[in-house]
């Protein structure tokens, strides 16, 4: 391609970071031929990460060097880099903090942390800064922190992520964040890693190894029945695996609840080749942290389950797309994949079966929308994380335009027991419509926030009781079910059985398993406006209903918050906005951007405060 590059050169650190990823042999030359350039595009996001984590920002020289190496047009690379919140196109200090001010953390006092941080470190990066700007006085300049959407550490809210760029980048995410803990982390002394609190109401299935087996040891994994499912899969054959998964009635746990067996069969039967497996570990729904707990606590399970998915769907290659804000999961998964490879459990002829499969780990870069499966494909392909129109569905036209089975982490882990013990064993718990167990992310004003595994059909109040109930001295006001894309339920709905069919009947959703409890001391209208702001920030901007609708929705809530108008007066507009976003948006983000707010209106959460 006849691209025009600039004359700005990369620094030595930038060049060596990119070369470490892409190899040094090729020098400056891009791949020869259009097909080779197209194939290299998928390395754009990893290359941008290499720049960001080595020097703390994506400079003009660095970006241009990546473009030269990969044959990517500079304007497109800029379009991609400027899409993701974790890439900075202005120079930043090498140590930088992202402080969560999303719903769970706000309810837990994030604003106090932020204002103290502002006093100590100065104003956060927000609003505007000219891209490509290098500060004259070097690395120490510029804002040292920014506010962030949900970091998936809601059980230890408020949370923060600290990134330290350098030849050996050090990132850490931690809960119970205070201004001084954040300062210490910025100075290179992060808090000790704490494992998440997990519990269950019955025998643990999904959580069987979490907190029990050493996540860094393949031997420990195997000692705890690891790789029994894969061995069983080879006995069953691909058709047998498809049959068991279909009969288990397993449905996707990312929020959309699509039958996994049907999805896998469609990919397995698709004639176009190759097929791909993608694990969607871009868990970003505010209030959700269950996948993080699995990824950190049982990384080999994800690797094994992806291998089974590859076997069943006739795929030889899997991509694990992990959200960029999960440094511990990144470390443990990288280690697990390497160990599995070294142990003959990935690569050619796995366990002597003749089946070949490998996994590539990809890291997101701060974009909620990339949890949408087709946006995730685009992100892996080195494009902006914009969702594609469906149909065609991923099973026909997915990653790189090929048939693709894309599954959420929890869904994949559930497959292990189904294959090992059979569908009948799996359907013996749960309800007829929703067999098996489910992970719930319980946070907010409860005694023991954490991840809870309970059979489908467990009542909401029983789940809360398992978490120790509402904090002493507080009264429960409302519960957000299913995350920002879900809906609020009231005190009168505590007897609701947590199954897909019962929540649907009640007009709400399980979504990604969020159970976020608010007490009556938390002002709700700012929470609602935070949800509206979240969708405005995270909209990819592609389609008009979502791009502009989320702005108008936030403006509307701002008017109500500021007393410029009344909810009653705004209701027709709110309803219209909800309708057009739900009906005409390209993807689930826009389609659900008003659901929590509309449910809050129905519950009267606004009136209580005004």
């Amino acid at each position, binding site marked *: *391609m*006849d*691209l025009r590059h600039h004359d700005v050169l990369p620094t030595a650190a930038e060049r060596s970071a990119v070369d470490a990823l892409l190899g040094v042999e090729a020098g400056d030359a891009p791949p*020869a*031929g*259009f*097909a080779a350039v197209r194939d290299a595009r998928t390395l754009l996001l990893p290359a941008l990460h290499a720049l960001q984590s080595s020097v703390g920002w994506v400079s003009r020289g660095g970006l241009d060097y990546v473009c030269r190496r990969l044959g990517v047009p500079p304007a497109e690379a800029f379009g991609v880099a400027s899409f993701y919140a974790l890439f900075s196109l202005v120079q930043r200090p090498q140590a930088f903090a992202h402080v969560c001010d999303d719903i769970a953390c706000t309810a837990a006092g994030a604003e106090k942390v932020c204002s103290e941080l502002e006093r100590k470190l100065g104003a956060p990066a927000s609003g505007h800064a000219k891209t490509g700007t290098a500060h004259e006085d070097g690395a120490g300049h510029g804002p040292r922190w920014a506010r962030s959407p949900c970091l998936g550490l809601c059980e230890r809210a408020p949370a923060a992520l600290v990134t330290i760029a350098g030849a050996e980048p050090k990132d850490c995410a931690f809960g119970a964040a205070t201004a001084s803990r954040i300062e210490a982390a910025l100075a290179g002394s992060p808090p000790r890693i704490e494992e998440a609190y997990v519990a269950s109401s019955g025998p643990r299935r999904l959580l069987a190894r979490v907190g029990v087996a050493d996540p860094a040891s393949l031997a420990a994994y195997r000692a705890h029945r690891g790789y029994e499912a894969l061995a069983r899969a080879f006995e069953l054959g691909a058709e047998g695996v498809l049959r068991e998964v279909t009969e288990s009635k397993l449905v996707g746990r990312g929020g959309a609840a699509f039958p996994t067996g049907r999805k896998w069969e469609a990919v397995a039967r698709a004639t176009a080749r190759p097929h791909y497996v993608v694990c969607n570990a871009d868990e970003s729904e505010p209030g959700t942290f269950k996948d993080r707990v699995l990824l950190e606590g049982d990384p080999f399970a994800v690797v094994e389950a992806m291998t089974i998915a590859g076997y069943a769907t006739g795929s030889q290659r899997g991509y694990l797309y992990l959200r960029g804000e999960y440094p511990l999961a990144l470390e443990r998964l990288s280690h697990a994949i390497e160990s599995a490879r070294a142990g003959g459990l990935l690569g050619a002829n796995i366990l002597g079966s003749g089946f070949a499969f490998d996994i590539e780990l990809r890291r997101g870069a701060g974009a909620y929308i990339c949890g949408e499966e087709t946006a995730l494909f685009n992100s892996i392909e080195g494009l902006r994380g914009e969702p594609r129109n469906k149909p065609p569905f991923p099973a026909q036209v997915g990653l790189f335009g090929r048939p693709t089975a894309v599954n959420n982490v929890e869904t994949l882990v559930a497959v292990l027991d189904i294959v090992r013990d059979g569908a009948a064993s799996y359907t013996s718990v749960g309800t007829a419509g929703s067999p098996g167990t489910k992970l719930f992310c319980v946070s907010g004003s409860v005694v023991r926030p954490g991840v809870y595994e309970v059979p489908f059909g467990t009542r909401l109040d029983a789940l809360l009781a398992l978490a120790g109930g509402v904090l002493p001295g507080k009264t429960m006001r409302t519960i957000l079910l299913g995350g920002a894309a879900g809906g609020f339920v009231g005190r009168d709905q505590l007897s609701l059985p947590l199954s897909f069919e019962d929540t649907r009947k009640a007009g709400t959703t399980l979504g990604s398993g969020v159970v976020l409890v608010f007490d009556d001391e938390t002002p709700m209208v700012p929470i609602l406006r935070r949800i509206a702001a979240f969708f405005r920030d995270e909209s990819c901007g592609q389609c008009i209903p979502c791009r502009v609708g989320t702005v108008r929705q936030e403006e509307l809530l701002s008017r109500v918050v500021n007393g410029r108008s009344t909810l009653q007066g705004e209701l027709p507009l709110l309803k219209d906005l909800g309708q057009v976003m739900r009906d005409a948006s390209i993807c689930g983000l826009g389609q659900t951007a008003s659901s929590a707010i509309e449910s809050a209106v129905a519950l009267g959460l606004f009136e209580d405060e005004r």
Partner: protein
Amino acid sequence: MEEAQVILLWGSNARETHPIFFHHVLKAVRRGAKLYVIDPRRTPTAEWSEGWAGLDVGTDIALANGVGRAILDAGLENRKFIANATEGFDAYRATLERYDVERVSTITRVDAELICRMARDFASAERAMICWTLGITEHHNAVDNVLSLINLALLTGHVGKWGSGLNPLRGQNNVQGGGDMGALPHKLTGFQDVEDDVLRSRFEAVWGCKIPPKNGWHLTEMFAAMGRRELTALYVIGENPAQSEADSTHALHCLEGLEHLIVQDIVMTKTAEMADVVLPASASWCESEGTVTNSERRVQRVRRALNPPGSARDDIEILCDLSSRLGYDMKARTPEALWDELRTLSPMHGGMSYPRLEALGGIQWPCPDESSVGSPFLHGRLWETPVRGPRAAFHPAEDEGPVDKLTSEFPLRLTTGRRLDSYNTGVQSGSFAWPMERRETVGIFPSDAARLGLRDGERVRVVSRRGSIEAPVRLDDRLKPGLVFMTMHFPDEVDTNLLTIDATDPRSGTAEFKAAAIRVEKVG
């Protein structure tokens, strides 16, 4: 084009000189077609290719023969097609004996591996195309260059079918049309031979006059005749030979020696400034009605959108009036009437009425009658068994190299070409507000510049056996060591054609603009 699987762009920088044609190439590339670009310069076109064959200037025949040889060595020739539709294959094969890939690689400085890969991909594709431009035709042995490419198409049967074939990309909107209309010294309208009495008499019957029965001179022969004072009066329509001819010192000398020069043009060109009579004309593409024929033989309508300024008149009006003054009143005087008369004389245009050209968005000839929608490709008959009409002949061609030899006095090879934003001598393109820097430069490979102690932007003198010019240096790593590049877009600033050689192919009459021997000197 878009359905070809392999495309060889030979001596063509289509990305810059035929940008919209290149859109179609890119559509093919996006569908998986393999593009090979054969050009001494790594042009923007070459940047899109699977393989850039950066041959030395003037070694095209050697390379084509090497590709042919590699096809034979791999046993990938289309034997059925050769046996059915061609003649002269044995002589061609005998010629290729001397062009083994290693030797060709030495002559051309193209990687042997690339030659073999290109040969293999081209020969084994179901549909493959060769397109060329002036990199093939602006040589003293242009016709042999073209024949050597035709040989490759015959060898593989990539001709006469959809998505395949040979495609010379025309440089002007009506080069093809000029030929179609008989603006050739040996052809009447529709490529009918002047010296064929039967054909000529048909024209004479319709026109009611006698046509000289002998072939005329082509441009280069005309200049030779001017040099001999045998041609003393010249009527130039829409050409700027004072600046566009190779070895312009010689060209100017010839023009100055004329007894009478008439120039009919839209602007005051350098040639017009020399004329005894200037006939101001309207711009044919926007101030006149008529037709043109593009590179794919598509006859298209041009229409009047603007009123011509001042006393400028339509070419047809001027010619008709001139004819009347000379004593012959043309019957048809409007564009459409002339065209309809032409349709009765030129069989290939028979079915192209103005209304049909309008309705079909142009028609590709031959289109003999109004039931025909034209012909997207030619030579389909070669696929009939037995073949109808004459067989297609192989014409073995031998490598010669440029006329202007490199010596220690003139050690560098100057080649000329065009840029995206400009056109020929800049008469048309010079006046619009191109936002980037626009001036003539001497493109030179960095290592050559370093050896000569030249910095980017430094003014240098370029000297050939015919003349010298001065211009600033531009370092260009898309060239090769020993290769220098200039355009002909800015003759008023830098008259590049003072350097070029008028060594001309006797059959096509085209001069070797693409290869001059030069040296580059520091100024002062």
